[in-house]
């Protein structure tokens, strides 16, 4: 199953039937139609809120994160280490590719066991040239990805891993600064875990949190996600959307699920779901990869809208046979899958609309709104709005405190502005999903003015 098409025929049919019925109702009795719509979104909001409360409660207990100490990581003798493939995709990255090569050189893993593939688009001559210069004499192989649509990261990744020979595979982005011991830690953890654990996701952190308010929000969001929410999601037996970089995979499992979906713009999220559907598990590895947080508004919106588009794409793809997905993920996992991948972009889209309604009703005194919000919708809707928004900030505050970054808490008080940015991204995502589902909105890297030193966290 691939996300090359926005909807399959059956989904299109169901969606058209629902939309048709609703429009018909709207013509016959607009009030009933709007009440139906409001009831539906309220049910979604309340369900998501309830899930989030349980999720939050689970995130408070000691997170299930695999810890591998430095000494443990170094215990496996070099000749017993599994062969490791590192895939790095780059497109129009001629300015940063030299830094990337330096970063890859720092990885602590025996050369004979390490296969590093730099995946470059074959018509991206500038990057190829720069990479050739930087890689001269280094243990890095340049692979040219044939040009042609879809021009996406997953296509390049597939191109890379199909010709690779590692037992373990990982992916890094060009601007990443992974913990140098990460590969050894992952190898050690894989050795200790049973074969159903097919994927270890390292934690992603931003090194430029203090650059501006956007990076503060972004850093807080990421720290909350990787340190508390993802581990709790695993406890809730939900499939987890992987992080796009620093996820470590068993090549055999990757083969079983058939690699990446070249049409999906969040191939990482999709891969996480597919692994879970095949009965594999993902765990979080306590090793940090530093990334550059997007500091520029436009660039941030582009990146976020690609994520949302990809989430929806992934959700729709796996909803083509919802019963199969349900059976494979289990009831709990299915709910988690819908909340995380379906509801996240959908609610980002609906939120500003709901806030506007509340504003019009409360400040503008548009009492006509009450007609389409009878009590049984109004009270749950209001409650979920206040509690949901509160919880969304509160859990970040708690995560910043437990993660030892209280300096990010003040920025969280302005978090609703960040939500508005998410909404802008959601609108863009939905539009793109319909017009150009597989168009990859490239994120510009190198906007942080300085590079943080590589640290071994």
């Amino acid at each position: 199953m691939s996300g090359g098409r926005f909807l399959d025929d059956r989904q299109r049919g169901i969606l058209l039937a629902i939309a048709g019925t609703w429009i018909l109702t709207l013509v016959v009795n607009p009030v009933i139609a709007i009440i139906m719509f409001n009831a539906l979104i309220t049910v979604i909001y309340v369900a998501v809120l309830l899930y989030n409360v349980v999720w939050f409660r689970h995130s408070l207990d000691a997170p299930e994160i695999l810890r591998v100490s430095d000494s443990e990581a170094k215990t496996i003798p070099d000749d017993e280490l599994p062969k490791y493939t590192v895939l790095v995709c780059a497109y129009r990255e001629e300015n940063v590719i030299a830094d990337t090569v330096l970063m890859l050189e720092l990885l602590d893993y025996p050369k004979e066991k390490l296969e590093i593939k730099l995946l470059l688009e074959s018509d991206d001559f500038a990057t190829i040239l720069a990479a050739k210069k930087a890689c001269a004499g280094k243990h890095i192989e340049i692979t040219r990805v044939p040009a042609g649509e879809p021009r996406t990261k997953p296509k390049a990744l597939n191109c890379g891993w199909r010709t690779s020979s590692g037992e373990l595979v990982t992916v890094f982005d060009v601007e990443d600064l992974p913990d140098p011991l990460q590969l050894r830690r992952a190898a050690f953890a894989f050795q200790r875990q049973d074969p159903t654990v097919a994927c270890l996701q390292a934690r992603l952190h931003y090194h430029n949190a203090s650059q501006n308010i956007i990076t503060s929000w972004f850093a807080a969001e990421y720290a909350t996600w990787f340190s508390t929410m993802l581990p709790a999601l695993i406890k809730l037996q939900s499939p987890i959307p992987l992080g796009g970089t620093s996820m470590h995979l068993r090549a055999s499992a990757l083969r079983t699920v058939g690699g990446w979906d070249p049409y999906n713009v969040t191939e990482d999220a999709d891969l996480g779901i597919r692994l879970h559907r095949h009965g594999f598990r993902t765990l979080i590895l306590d090793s940090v990869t530093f990334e550059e947080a997007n500091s520029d508004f436009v660039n941030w919106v582009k990146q976020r809208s690609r994520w949302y588009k990809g989430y929806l794409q992934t959700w729709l793809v796996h909803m083509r046979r919802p019963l199969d997905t349900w059976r494979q993920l289990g009831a709990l996992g299915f709910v988690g899958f819908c909340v995380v991948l379906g509801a996240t972009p959908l609610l980002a889209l609906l939120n500003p609309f709901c806030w506007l309604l509340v504003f019009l009703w409360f400040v503008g005194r548009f009492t006509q709104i009450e007609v389409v919000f009878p009590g049984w919708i109004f009270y749950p809707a209001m409650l979920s709005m206040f509690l949901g928004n509160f919880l969304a900030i509160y859990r970040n505050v708690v995560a910043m405190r437990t993660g030892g970054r209280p300096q990010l808490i003040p920025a969280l008080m302005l978090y609703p502005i960040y939500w508005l940015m998410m909404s802008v991204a959601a609108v863009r995502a939905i539009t793109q999903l319909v017009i150009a589902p597989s168009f990859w909105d490239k994120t510009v890297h190198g906007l942080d003015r300085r590079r943080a030193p590589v640290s071994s966290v």
Partner: protein
Amino acid sequence: MALASGFPLAKRSEAVVGLGLRLPNLSETRVAFGLCLSVYVVVAAVLVFIGNVPANDGVARVATANRILFSRDPHLAAIGFVWSPLPNLVLLPFVALKFLWPALVRQAFAGNLVSALFMAGAVVQLLRFLQDIGLTRGRRLALAACFALHPMIVLYAANSMSEAQFLFFLLLVVRHLGRWLRERRMASLVVMSMYLALAYLTRYEATAAAAAVLGIVGLATYLDSQGAPRSRLALAASDCVIAVAPFALAFVLWALVSFVITGSAFPQLSSAYGNAAQLHSLGLGHPTLAREFDGAVTGVRWMLALEPFLPLVVVVGAIQSLLRRDMNSLALAAIFAAVVTFMFWAHTTGAILPNLRYFIVVIPFAVVMAAIALSPTQPRLRAGSRVREDAYASVNGSRGSSGGIRFRPVGQIAFAVGCVLLMMTAIPAAGNALLSNSTDPNDAYPIQALLTRTPTSQQEMASKRYLMERSDSSYIDSLHLPRGSVLIDDFIGFVIVMTSNHPDQYVAPSDRDFKPVLLAPAEFGVLYILVPPNSGLGSLDAINRQYPTLYDDGAGIGTLVRQFHDEGDTYTDWRLYRIAPQH
């Protein structure tokens, strides 16, 4: 509730009952809960069905829940905004069952059941707290009994007031804050903060507890963390935010909801029915210095009536804590102390009606102080408890094991027995206070009437409260009137509407069309108006405010049909006026 999951249950195998008979699946706390609940419900049944000892506010809450579900205009906003919302909300499922057992609403027994449940829950929370601080079973059961069997606690478990609910949440706050202080697990702090918010939605005096929590959490984190003062301050501030943010949300939200619906953010202070208006109507508006002094004296007298040895246990408990350098226990006691102090201040300055029940928190306060005095120097670890050895080490420090007043084993037992006996004196003392005319005449008379064979006229009258309203209501039911035909302000007349088989025949201020109906009753099909005398609390009645002379002369819109004579001691002789029909 999801938030409460994951806490260790008490050991189940501990239950040993009577003659060495072992009952499976009965933990100490479950037995305590079952026993307390049974006692409280029996007492409640005696109060309601035998003695007619109604608690005004408790009955009013059932009336409110009934109004939300079954009035002419059922809607949640009819909840009323003078009192906190949670006690009304928890009644809704019970009131909804009135078709199964009408007494739940007609006699307002739903309220008594709820208060009994919460008080039994409070006993359980207290037991768990005593367990948490390491009290041996004999001691904790004895102290829990001092609480559970305290006459004031029994009465407020049975009489449907919101005190039980408040104590329940307050004890949860104290227990989870205690866990956080010992273990510093974030989950405890977050759970505590949720209960603090619920406590505020139950009674406003939780604000004092919130202030205490803020201070304790800030100080504890600051003193416990390392690094530069600036970073310690940042950590302390973030813990404070986590601890009180849900409380702040509850506070703001309730103010906002009140504002949207009533136009005032704090109607409990400013409304026509609010605290200030009630005090004013009872002639208690502006206290003089002399009256404040009197208030202070009564306050102290009442606290001592509830817990005669309060000062002693506070001093002994505090000395024990200080000698052991165990600031945590003292911090927890400070939460109760904060609420007691706040109520004492409010009582002294005349900000609240003088009432013994506002001092109910001195009871858990005294019990907890006694527990601190009796707690072992090195708390015993409970099996299955998550309490870590090193957590205690950090609490007590290296000095921990040597501090405290120490006795030999026999002396220890004697000390414990002595403490418990001191606490037990509260039972006769408070029983006496509750029955004394000078302490709390309002509540004392009907209980006296219940306990005596030859009641005085005053006791007799007190035991007839609301009987007139009930007969009033059945008379109106017997007229078989259509929907919306009787205009009433059920602020005072709540029993009339609540007891009715057809509450929808009344038009009341919570109906969203009340104002136009009040201005032109006949136009909206109102046939009758019910009014209380325009004096005392009756002057707050919306109908009296609109038609000040209606009660006396019909105000030109109605003719007197009937006067209902109140044989109770509230002297509210309601009058029923018939409205001249509109032509």
